[in-house]
């Protein structure tokens, strides 16, 4: 039967019957626009930040003598912008922090998710959250006045009070709760049925944790590590106070004071009136900021890749 043979519906309804309430539809549109705008705000802000960083950083690179980027230290007011000083110091602090916070945070997570009973967990989780809530200024002073003399100088008596290792340990304390809670969430969400399968086959708790739960939770664990690394790279107050921000000489030793990227920016910004107009010191702030941004951004991209690859294996 051809379409034209069908009887046409006769006009019982007019368009007005189905048009609905005009005012209400208008309001719906406005609400929608509001939410779109809200979502766009953060996008626009990010774009503005990256834009302003890039412009000033570009101005810096163009105006500075490129040999000044590879000298023996970071002295912006004197025109020495040794990039490797900042990067090395940042790497040392981050490495120390992750070497300590990684295993401790991860082991805490395994304990909380696989060993602890419900009551212990209820008791311990708030303690972790309290640790996460300690202001980083406080931790900076703790690193300088306690960790440095009692731990770092005990390992290396020749180390000065301000040094990168103490800063790294301080940052480690800050990131342990982050590693622990993100890893714990990842492991707790592994279905109970998998744990039962493993125990049913005669696996001990340790075996179940390491051979079944951890592999199943691996994407969450990688995420925890990356998040914590980003946090460690971006941490400012602890490294500024305990790392020896006034010593900007290049060093590859964790037992020496030096300047991380964040500490360099903070100490520059602290005296920013003075900085303006002094050569390229003001612009160097944006240059370091852009580097910092690129590193964290790269880390997140890498994390996504790793997670996707590892996940496909299963």
């Amino acid at each position: 039967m051809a379409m034209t043979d069908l009887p046409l519906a006769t006009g019982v309804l007019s368009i007005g019957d189905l048009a609905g309430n005009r005012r209400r539809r208008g309001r719906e549109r406005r609400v929608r626009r509001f939410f779109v705008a809200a979502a766009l705000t953060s996008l626009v802000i990010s774009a503005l930040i990256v834009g302003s960083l890039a412009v000033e950083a570009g101005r810096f690179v163009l105006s500075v003598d490129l040999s000044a980027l590879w000298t023996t230290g970071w002295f912006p007011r004197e025109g020495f912008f040794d990039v490797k000083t900042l990067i090395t110091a940042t790497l040392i602090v981050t490495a120390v922090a992750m070497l300590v916070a990684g295993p401790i945070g991860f082991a805490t997570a395994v304990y909380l998710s696989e060993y602890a009973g419900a009551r212990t967990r209820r008791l311990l989780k708030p303690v972790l959250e309290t640790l996460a809530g300690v202001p980083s200024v406080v931790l900076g002073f703790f690193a300088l006045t306690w960790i440095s003399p009692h731990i770092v100088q005990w390992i290396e008596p020749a180390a000065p009070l301000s040094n990168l290792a103490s800063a790294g340990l301080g940052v480690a304390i800050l990131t342990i709760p982050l590693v622990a809670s993100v890893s714990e969430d990842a492991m707790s969400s592994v279905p109970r049925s998998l744990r039962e399968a493993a125990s049913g086959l005669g696996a001990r708790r340790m075996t179940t944790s390491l051979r079944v739960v951890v592999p199943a939770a691996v994407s969450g664990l990688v995420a925890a590590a990356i998040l914590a690394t980003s946090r460690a790279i971006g941490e400012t107050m602890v490294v500024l106070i305990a790392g020896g921000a006034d010593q900007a000489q290049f060093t590859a030793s964790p037992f020496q004071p030096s300047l991380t990227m964040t500490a360099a920016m903070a100490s520059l910004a602290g005296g920013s009136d003075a900085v303006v107009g002094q050569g390229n010191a003001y612009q160097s702030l944006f240059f370091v900021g852009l580097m910092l941004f690129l590193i964290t951004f790269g880390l997140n991209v890498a994390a996504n890749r790793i997670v996707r690859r590892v996940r496909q294996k299963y």
Partner: protein
Amino acid sequence: MTVDLDSAVVAKGAVAPPAPLPVLTANDLQVYYGDFQAVRNVHLAIPRNEIVAMIGPSGCGKSTVLRCFNRMNELIDGCRVTGHVCYHGVDLYDPRVDAVEVRRRIGMVFQKPNPFPKSVYENVVFGPRIAGVARAEFDGIVESSLRKAALWDEVKDRLKASALGLSGGQQQRLCIARAIASNPDVLLMDEPCSALDPIATGRIEDLMHELKADYTIVIVTHNMQQAARVSDRTAFFTVEVSSDSDRRTGVLVEYDDTEKIFSNPSDSRTENYVTGRFG
């Protein structure tokens, strides 16, 4: 074969064959979840190389009793077991007994297929690997276990592929293969076919018949025909509601040869249940 294991019932007739020593016995078993008593006074003996079916309405404690046989209840917070479960004469709940050793000998297949998110191969060798079996034996174990579980032909070309890519029925047979690979003595199966179609169910039932030669099997099932088809003995559980406190406790009503349970049960509650008149 009619072997009466219940010592309370004296075998009538002249020459009953000598009762083989049971593999598992439950004596005066009581299970509590916190304050709640889930199961009361269970006496049960599982003979070697037989299939024992446990049937009964939902919530009557079949899974709970089954999990007592390999101490899986310990993984549940607040679960407490009293009485005795003996395995070849050893009390499983003796403090000197290590639950891990028990579970290596008494394997379990769960109601929902729960393969690890690993390859088919890794799933099967999980048990042997943690038990320290030499790697050189893995290939042989994988093939023989998958063959026994009637899965080999379907997966032999994708042993390295993820087990999660298998169908539900294949996953369940993989879980059976995984349990067999550890070479247990007893296999506990909690509604192993409830997620399967009739063909896969038939395969698993055939499989159980074959496995009987080497293993002792306890199966929980809601499918009466299945119990009648596969088992040698059947235990019927039900829920007793106490009149004064509204507490619901699981009890073992009757345990006998499957044929007797389904044709001529001694308890009217059993009869009502197996004939579908359960109220």
